[in-house]
């Protein structure tokens, strides 16, 4: 009987401790007392996660190759991947063309949104039961990573860094339900807010202009944030799959298919700087005609 009472007491203490943690974390936000705990855990567990991933990567490859048994499937996958690459190349060519036609053609200078990236490998993925779409990558503050940097992969925009340890960082993917980014329709240049839905194959975009022309197949790129944080402009996000113009609402909503496949990310690039490769000259005002 005494044992049972002691067990109940310990249970009550632990439950209270859990609830205290929840309250501290919710109230504290980004600067609360939980943040140092998170940083310390990241510093200790980041290297461990790297080690585990490195030690066991042959297993992952084995599982991948077993699940892709059969030459046909491999061929189809390879062709699909190539097709996707080509489609993105075609789509983003349109983005460049539209930008050139708009402003840079007028100036006679081609603006180039070249970005410097730090490549990184995904070393851990949040469990699906947690409902959050986050991954840990093996690059951190010693590699020049800071909080609020764009993360891309071969397809397009993947997400942004939300917490950075010494040699690991956590990336909040764009498909997470709490993620948002400014988006721009390539071509018509309409802007809107792209939000994650929690589903890996769907993003939504709220267009600010209710009368904006938007078609299925339109390409959405990042609008860019102030100072390039967290998002640098001109990175492809996704393709419009359907448009639902809700009557009575001030904005129209487009459903996007993201270019970057969030379910199978392995290699990513963190945008650490955006460079302007061609300086813009000043065009002097034309001399007023003498009268």
């Amino acid at each position, binding site marked *: 009987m005494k044992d049972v009472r*002691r*067990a109940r007491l*310990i*249970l009550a203490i*632990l*439950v209270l*401790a*859990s*609830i*205290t*943690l*929840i*309250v*501290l*974390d*919710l109230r504290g936000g980004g600067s609360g007392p*939980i943040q140092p*705990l*998170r940083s310390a*855990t*990241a510093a200790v*567990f*980041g290297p*461990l*996660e790297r080690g*585990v*991933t490195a030690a*066991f990567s042959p*297993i*992952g490859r084995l*599982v991948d190759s077993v*699940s892709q048994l059969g030459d046909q499937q491999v061929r189809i996958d390879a062709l699909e991947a190539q097709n996707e690459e080509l489609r993105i190349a075609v789509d983003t060519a349109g983005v460049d063309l539209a930008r050139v036609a708009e402003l840079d053609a007028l100036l006679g200078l081609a603006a180039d949104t070249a970005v410097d990236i730090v490549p990184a490998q*995904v*070393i*851990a*993925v*949040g*469990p*699906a*039961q*947690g*409902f*959050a779409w*986050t*991954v*840990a990558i093996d690059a951190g503050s010693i590699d020049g990573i800071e909080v609020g940097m764009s993360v891309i992969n071969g397809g397009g925009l993947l997400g942004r860094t939300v*917490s950075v*340890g010494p040699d690991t*960082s*956590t*990336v*909040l993917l764009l498909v*997470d*339900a*709490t993620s948002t980014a400014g988006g721009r329709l390539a071509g018509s240049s309409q802007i809107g807010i792209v939000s994650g839905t*929690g*589903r890996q194959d769907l993003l939504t975009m709220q267009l600010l202009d209710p009368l904006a022309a938007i078609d299925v197949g339109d390409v959405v790129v990042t609008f860019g944030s102030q100072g390039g944080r967290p998002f640098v402009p001109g990175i492809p996000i996704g393709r419009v799959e359907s448009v639902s113009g809700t009557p009575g609402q001030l904005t129209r909503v487009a459903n996007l298919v993201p270019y970057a496949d969030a*379910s*199978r990310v*392995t290699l990513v690039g963190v945008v650490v700087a955006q460079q302007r490769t061609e300086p813009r000259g000043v065009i002097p005002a034309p001399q007023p005609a003498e009268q």
Partner: protein
Amino acid sequence: MAIRRAVLIGSLVVLAVLIEVSLLAPLPWWSATPPLALVVVAAVAFVFGSVTGAVTGFATGVLVDLVPPAEGTVGVSALILTLVGYGLGRVFDSDERPWPITTGLTAVAGGVAVVAAAALGGLLGDPRVRWEEVPSMTVAAAVYAGILSLVVVPLVRWVSRRVVPEAFGR
């Protein structure tokens, strides 16, 4: 004995959390991902009883909430795993339990943990919770937990007997 037990359980928990996020979660699973940390908490509770189970659950939960790339509210997993550890430790008194019972109980705990996480998330206003996915996740997590327990529970029992034989009174 207490120190050896703490070191043993601590190592098991750290290993389980690392394997779960670094090796299991990146693979393509249906719906949920295998809840290895929860299964280890269940196994410890089966072997050492409800007090150790609850403490182990709390420590594991705090770790699960903090280890990158966790972004959820700290304390949610701690609360759920504390209750899992306490509950599973309380159900039976003997440390020798037949595998159908341990497997069934672990599977139930795996499913309940998903529902509890979703409910707590909803209660705390987490916009990420999508209820339409909770049923399939619950089933998947229960199945994965049950399968994992077939290996993990005997393994934890065997290691515990080796490292802390005093705890078994022989």
